[in-house]
């Protein structure tokens, strides 16, 4: 007991020593993120190297997985302990909520110095700003509404990548008849929700998506359009092989690669799997947007800067923000990650065709007002509301629930979650 007490005391002494402000303010930042392995880890490492090169001390705090993102628990634990990490990988409305809780630092200084307003699309600015001030730094843009198709397999039934949902269904039926799995899918709630939102965007259209999934308009949620969305989901269920539940998305991608399945609906991180297997876009696989009226479902990762004490830590945050949004890092990182830069002025030469298509589509979608946040990936919605959407989408997809029932449950669940 005595030695334990001693340990407590000395531990307190040690932390006190750490907390005391050091004399010089070498930039230092603890970064809490869930990019812990593979290409993602390489991408983060690029950032760390850049940070160190500028004299910063990077304290790595990776926490992946572990039950629906252990990181979420860690972050709350750290904030409640009064010791938040300097930079945390969070995104979408969660940024707003943390800002509302007064936990985030203001980055206006760096932002105006680096002219963020000039280089970021407005949709992204809205995500990372709270009450007009920047509180987070966007890293990248992933597009969610992609179809990844195996052209050889499609050719077997004389089809190309579908451009309307009717065409999608017709092609899928043909594939089924030919004994080919039309849609490679992993039955995890977020994957179910990913398909769901692309169908909402495709069947309902951009305005319906905005009303139902962004503005949570009850009329839209309970409308007949939503019923037909679920009807289409029921059809999609028929296009999936029986072994889909629990399958990781990358295994589904592998099915497309191997020609066991024709298509997969997945965000553009799927490209990493193809690349790792040495496949070439346009030849071995095709990337096409899911059928919609020029819609673009965006998923953007970002780092929020938490309120920390100490000159060194604040300096670290500012340096980190500057680096993350710097052209150089935006290029290296997104090449590793398979996504596209959040800022629009990064040279395109190194990027592949899919990425360039994504960039073009984003620009035109932003101009046409069809650039939307993904619900499944926590951009349009977060927390309870997103959870409610996912619950209903996955419950419907995995059971024989009728579309009418699904719509009723959806309205009820969203009301409950608000």
């Amino acid at each position, binding site marked *: 007991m005595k030695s334990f007490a001693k340990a407590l005391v000395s531990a307190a002494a040690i932390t006190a020593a750490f907390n005391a402000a050091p004399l010089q303010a070498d930039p230092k930042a*603890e970064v809490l993120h869930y990019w812990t392995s593979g290409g993602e880890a390489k991408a983060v490492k690029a950032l760390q190297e850049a940070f160190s090169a500028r004299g910063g001390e990077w304290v790595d705090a990776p926490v992946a997985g572990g039950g629906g993102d252990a990181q979420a628990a860690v972050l709350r634990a*750290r904030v409640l*302990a009064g010791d938040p990490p300097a930079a945390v990988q969070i995104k979408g409305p969660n940024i707003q909520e943390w800002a509302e809780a007064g936990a985030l630092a203001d980055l206006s200084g760096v932002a105006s110095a680096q002219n963020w307003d000039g280089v970021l699309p407005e949709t992204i600015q809205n995500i990372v700003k709270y009450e007009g001030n920047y509180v987070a730094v966007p890293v990248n843009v992933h597009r969610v509404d992609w179809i990844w198709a195996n052209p050889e397999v499609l050719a077997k039934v004389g089809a190309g990548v579908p451009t309307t949902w009717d065409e999608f269904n017709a092609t899928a039926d043909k594939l089924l008849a030919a004994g080919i799995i039309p849609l490679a899918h992993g039955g995890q709630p977020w994957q179910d929700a990913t398909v769901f939102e692309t169908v909402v965007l495709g069947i309902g259209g951009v305005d319906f998506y905005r009303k139902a999934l962004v503005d949570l308009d009850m009329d839209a949620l309970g409308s007949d359009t939503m019923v037909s969305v679920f009807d289409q989901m029921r059809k999609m269920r028929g296009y999936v092989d029986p072994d889909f539940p629990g399958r990781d998305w990358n295994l589904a991608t592998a099915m497309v690669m191997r020609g066991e399945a024709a298509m997969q609906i997945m965000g553009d991180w799927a490209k990493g799997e193809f690349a790792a297997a040495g496949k070439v876009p346009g030849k071995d696989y095709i990337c096409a947007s899911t059928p919609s009226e020029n819609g673009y479902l965006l998923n953007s990762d970002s780092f929020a800067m938490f309120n920390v004490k100490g000159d060194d830590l604040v300096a670290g945050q500012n340096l980190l923000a500057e680096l993350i949004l710097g052209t150089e890092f935006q290029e290296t990182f997104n090449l590793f990650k398979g996504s596209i830069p959040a800022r629009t002025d990064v040279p395109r030469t190194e990027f592949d065709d899919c990425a360039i298509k994504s960039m073009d589509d984003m620009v035109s979608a932003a101009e046409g007002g069809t650039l939307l946040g993904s619900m499944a990936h926590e951009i349009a919605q977060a927390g309870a509301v997103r959870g409610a959407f996912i619950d209903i989408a996955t419950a419907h997809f995995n059971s024989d629930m009728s579309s009418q029932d699904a719509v009723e449950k959806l309205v009820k669940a969203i009301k409950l979650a608000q």
Partner: protein
Amino acid sequence: MSNSTTFVPAQNRSVLWMRLLLWTILLLFAIWFLLPAYVVVGTSLKDLAEIRGGSLLALPHELNFTAWRHAWSEACIGVTCTGLEPYFWNSVTMALPAVTLSTLLGALTGYALTKWQFKGANLVFALILFGCFVPFQVVILPMAQTLGLIGITNTVYGLILVHTVYGLAFTTLFFRNYYVTIPDELVRAATIDGAGFFTIFRRIILPLSPPIIVVSVIWQFTQIWNDFLFGASFTTGGAQPITVAMNNLVNTTTGVKQYNVDMAAALITAAPTLFVYIVAGRYFVRGLTAGSVKG
């Protein structure tokens, strides 16, 4: 006479059949218990192409320890590419003191509760025992606040404290139930001989405790070593225990999975507890026999 001569072989035959049935059941269960281990070990020894192409249950073509080496000393976890090795030692520095402390406190508490029955001792015990049943998810937030207040958040001391507290319920249960079976007269005799509370504990009770110490240590070591939630919530970066590092290595949201490395990492993570069970398993059973389970 004729009766018994026909009877005996018949009985022998039925004994033989019973024996055969017995062994069949035992072996079927053994297969069931070994199947996951076989899959995990087998996969860890294959290369990725073999995993993608072949059946899970197929034997590896050749023994390939690359994945093991990779997981132990090369794999990147976050931005550091050190493999699991440093995290392994983190777990050791966390588990050893936590196991020791919780076992010692449990032994002392169990001893005081059984051999020095004071008023309310049973109530105290019941209240402590209920601590076994609190799901850890529930305590993360208040614990975080508390650790923050004490100022040991993000340190190995914090984790030691957490594991000691939540292990205490179990160790107290084990020791209390074991000490109930030790005759009170020993303590009385020693009291008259002039030994005090701690002397009796050290000289009489503790030397009788190895069976239950083994049970308690195995149990606590397994629990603490395998913990993920507390490790993830109350440490970061280089201080993380191996389970968190293993999880970081295995989990990728949008990256490519290396199943062989994942499995090797899982096995490396599980190795110390497996080792403890295999080596000390029979002492474990013996310790349970010695009275730990006699409510």
